[in-house]
């Protein structure tokens, strides 16, 4: 979905479901290159001017045993001539590269949907591996769908024969043949893919040519073979969009760009300390290539060292940033407490995944909200903000940098596996429209006979940022409770009470510099508010749109600032008759809302590793209003 880029007509906004959208799922073995195929199809879709949302869904194993159901990797894309907010409830088209891919994905397909299968892979052995007793392409078990099948493997081998590749290498071109077919189906330009292949295989031109030939062969096959009714060419018109320059962006890319922008707006160099973990690693990969922006990236020996080094860098005057997923964030918590205690700026990015423990490394969830808001020893509040989409991650990253530096505090930025990997069209922002928030280091030595006051307070209750290297301001900080002002060790009851109160008040004070909570759609004081945060934005938004079209009195409230909340959130929520909070966890934000505002918030929970479908939220709205 494209955040704030579309000017929707009422008709478009309420179409149920939008007529001009198609959901395609590519599914194959994890070694079949489905993510690559999906990624390139996404690019061609964006270039064709469609709005889109994607959902890459892959196993945790890099190369699970071939042909098995647990080794199936899928990439779903929803695209259309109207605003797209989710990756789609049900695919209209499933491209299944082997029996296991069919087995795992067929049930998701809408009734009457189209299955395109590579019959060349439906051997007795592969059927057995997928758990089929008979060939589903022949036994009529797929009757509720339209099925076309041809031997993609053989067609690919024929297409790349002139290049004399080995069988294994030749079959690797299968995904490009399939992509060619998909490009024909949706009337797409092949040239950008050809250019990409040439660049990708610049060092092995024969592989580039083989892949291009496979792509062209797949395209030609669609054009020449007469398969009959279900298999025809569709043209999806461009989606309405505000005029301007667009690109596609994944959440990880947008986050990286937002953090760079945030540091540039703050006028401070970035130190990014990280330890590889799924699905957070892409952020490290993106930032590692951007040294010209004054960025140092550090792959630490572990999660703890990553955050500690980031805090060390913040202490020395850079903006320390660390990033991980749930299990890694758990390891960072003690150090985050130190950053709270020493009041140093820090941004902690959590790309949430299914938990607890190792949980579901490649699947999405929103179950680290308690961890973010409450998850440290002692009374240790931090601001928490959550991104709702890939493009929104850009804005949230800037906001996290602003809050961290202005209030001298760690900030937790929540995103999730879905946002990190999903792509959407993004209107390239005009950076001149962003107000800088330059940091100021304190460098005025105390008068003769007076001590350094590293824990003096400004109007925001923030303490001065004093870099080591500044003459005359030598001082010591640490994790032990301290005397207000001087920061000297002080365990006294009065000191601990005052410092605890001050740290809490400072974080609550962040609410003074964030916008009031608005209602996305629907009216204030409606019968029902559907309150969401994070990546549930898309399905909630579409579901509420549809409910409004049906005449239901519903509103969508989407909260970016989880902690502290916008000042008006309580009164706003109290104005609704009922509140439903859909979350990909067991009801964590619901608990926060109940605790903070004594409102009767009800949960809609889902922890399957997949995002909400629009229909699930529509049904919850119906239930709440019945």
């Amino acid at each position: 979905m494209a955040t704030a880029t579309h000017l929707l007509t009422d008709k478009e906004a309420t179409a149920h479901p939008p007529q001009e959208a198609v959901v395609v799922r590519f599914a194959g073995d994890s070694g079949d290159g489905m993510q690559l195929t999906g990624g390139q199809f996404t690019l061609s879709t964006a270039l064709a001017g469609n709005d889109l949302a994607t959902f890459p869904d892959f196993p945790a194993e890099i190369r699970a045993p071939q042909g098995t159901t647990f080794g199936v990797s899928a990439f779903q894309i929803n695209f259309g001539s109207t605003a797209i907010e989710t990756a789609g409830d049900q695919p209209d088209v499933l491209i299944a590269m082997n029996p296991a891919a069919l087995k795992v994905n067929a049930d998701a397909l809408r009734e009457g949907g189209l299955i395109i299968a590579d019959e060349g892979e439906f051997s007795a052995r592969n059927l057995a591996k997928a758990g089929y007793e008979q060939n589903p392409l022949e036994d009529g078990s797929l009757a509720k769908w339209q099925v076309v099948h041809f031997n993609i493997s053989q067609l690919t081998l024929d297409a790349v024969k002139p290049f004399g590749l080995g069988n294994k290498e030749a079959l690797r071109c299968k995904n490009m043949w399939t992509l060619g077919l998909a490009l024909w189906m949706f009337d797409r330009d092949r040239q950008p893919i050809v250019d990409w292949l040439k660049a990708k295989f610049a060092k092995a031109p024969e592989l580039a040519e083989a892949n291009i030939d496979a792509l062209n062969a797949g395209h030609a096959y669609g054009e020449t073979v007469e398969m009959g009714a279900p298999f025809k060419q569709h043209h999806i018109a461009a989606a309405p969009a505000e005029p301007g320059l667009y690109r596609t962006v994944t959440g990880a890319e947008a986050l990286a760009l937002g953090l760079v922008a945030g540091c540039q707006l703050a006028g401070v160099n970035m130190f990014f300390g990280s330890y590889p973990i799924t699905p957070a690693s892409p952020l490290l990969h993106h930032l590692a290539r951007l040294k010209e922006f004054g960025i140092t990236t550090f792959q630490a020996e572990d999660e703890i060292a990553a955050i500690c080094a980031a805090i060390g860098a913040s202490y020395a005057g850079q903006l320390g940033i660390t990033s991980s997923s749930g299990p890694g964030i758990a390891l960072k918590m003690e150090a985050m407490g130190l950053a709270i205690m020493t009041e140093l700026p820090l941004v902690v990015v959590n790309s949430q995944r299914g938990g607890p423990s190792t949980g579901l490394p490649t699947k999405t969830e929103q179950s680290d909200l308690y961890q973010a808001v409450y998850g440290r020893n002692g009374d240790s509040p931090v601001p928490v903000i959550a991104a709702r989409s890939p493009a929104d991650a850009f804005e949230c990253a800037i906001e996290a940098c602003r809050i961290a530096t202005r209030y001298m505090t760690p900030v937790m930025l929540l995103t999730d596996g879905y946002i990190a990997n999903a792509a959407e069209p993004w209107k390239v922002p005009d950076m001149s429209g962003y107000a800088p928030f330059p940091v100021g280091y304190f460098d005025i030595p105390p008068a003769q006979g007076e001590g350094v006051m590293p824990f003096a307070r400004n109007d925001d209750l923030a303490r001065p940022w004093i870099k080591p290297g500044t003459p005359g301001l030598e001082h010591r900080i640490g994790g032990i409770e301290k005397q207000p002002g001087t920061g000297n060790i002080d365990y006294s009851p009065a000191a601990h009470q005052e410092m605890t109160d001050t740290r809490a008040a400072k974080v609550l004070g962040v609410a003074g510099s964030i916008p009031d909570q608005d209602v996305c759609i629907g009216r204030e004081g409606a019968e029902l508010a559907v309150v969401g945060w994070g990546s549930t934005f898309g399905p909630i938004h579409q579901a509420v749109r549809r409910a409004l079209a049906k005449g239901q009195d519903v509103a969508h409230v989407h909260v970016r600032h989880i902690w502290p909340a916008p000042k008006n959130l309580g009164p706003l929520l109290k104005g609704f008759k009922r509140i439903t909070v859909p979350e990909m966890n067991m009801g964590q934000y619901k608990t926060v809302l109940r605790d903070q505002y004594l409102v009767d918030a009800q949960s809609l929970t889902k922890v399957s590793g997949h995002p909400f479908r629009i229909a699930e939220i529509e049904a919850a709205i119906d239930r709440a209003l019945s």
Partner: protein
Amino acid sequence: MNEISPIPTTTAKDWASDQEVRWCPGCGDYAVLKAVQRTMPDLGVAREKTVFISGIGCSSRFPYYMASYGFHTIHGRAPAFATGVKLANPELDVWIITGDGDALSIGGNHTMHVLRRNLDCQILLFNNEIYGLTKGQYSPTSRVGTRSPSTPFGSVDRPVTPCMFALGSGARFVARGIDVHKNLPDVLKAAHAHKGASFVEIYQNCVVYNDDVFASFTSRELAADKQLWLKPGEKMLFAGGAKGLALDVEGLCLKVVDGDDPSVIVHDPKNRGIAAMLILMPESFPVALGVIYENPAPTFEAAVMEQNAAAASGKTPDLQALVAKGQTWQVEKEPREL
């Protein structure tokens, strides 16, 4: 490029903070603190450019007592904080103060990595073979059989040898000192002069929980016979020169010979093999002290800075261009209006 400002002459007193020192009376930490404060004026460094970073434990209170910048962090993680500090500002002179539990138990991983990366810093490991701050439990350097509140029948696990751990981790500077010994400032100066991670194990007496645990070589009566102070380029002699160390070529180990024996070897700090033998000498031998191994290599922060600069060279940090990177397309006007 950098402004060179004259470093003001300081005295030991200038390096003492106004905070009351709160170690047990008679603790070896006092002696180390004094030695460091006495050494700093000789190093030609500015207080504002000096940062002491510690973890948790008795020794880790150290930064509060130095009139420089200081950061008392969390248990075992001082090397990681130091890495961030040094990468953010390589001009800072970074000292890590740690103990046997902090550096080798909870923080063993970070100790290993700061050494192998060769971050330019001084690591002073106060080894008292016991947990002091938590009231006397045995530590990873405690000898087998150490009775403590957590091991009332004696510890059964074998201790780690700190300098061997350092050498094995790829340290390029490994030295030993004793808290109250007059040579400690010289060891500190050598550690500071070394560019890279300088690992210094300081035998430190805990008067309350592990008193006299090092008396077998630190007591006045035994010192001469049991301490071998190494000096680069000089013969390895001890017991007032009456004895020396030679290489037992057949056994590939060290042996004790008479001081005037021509086979007494000369200390070459670059020899890693001999360094390992010196560290691992059995109880019947003297304890090797001073700079055991020194073989400089490029530092981590220099390599990072160099690569950052090379990767950035010729590129303009243009944020607008960055956000517009990749394959883009222009929407001229609303397609709906067509």
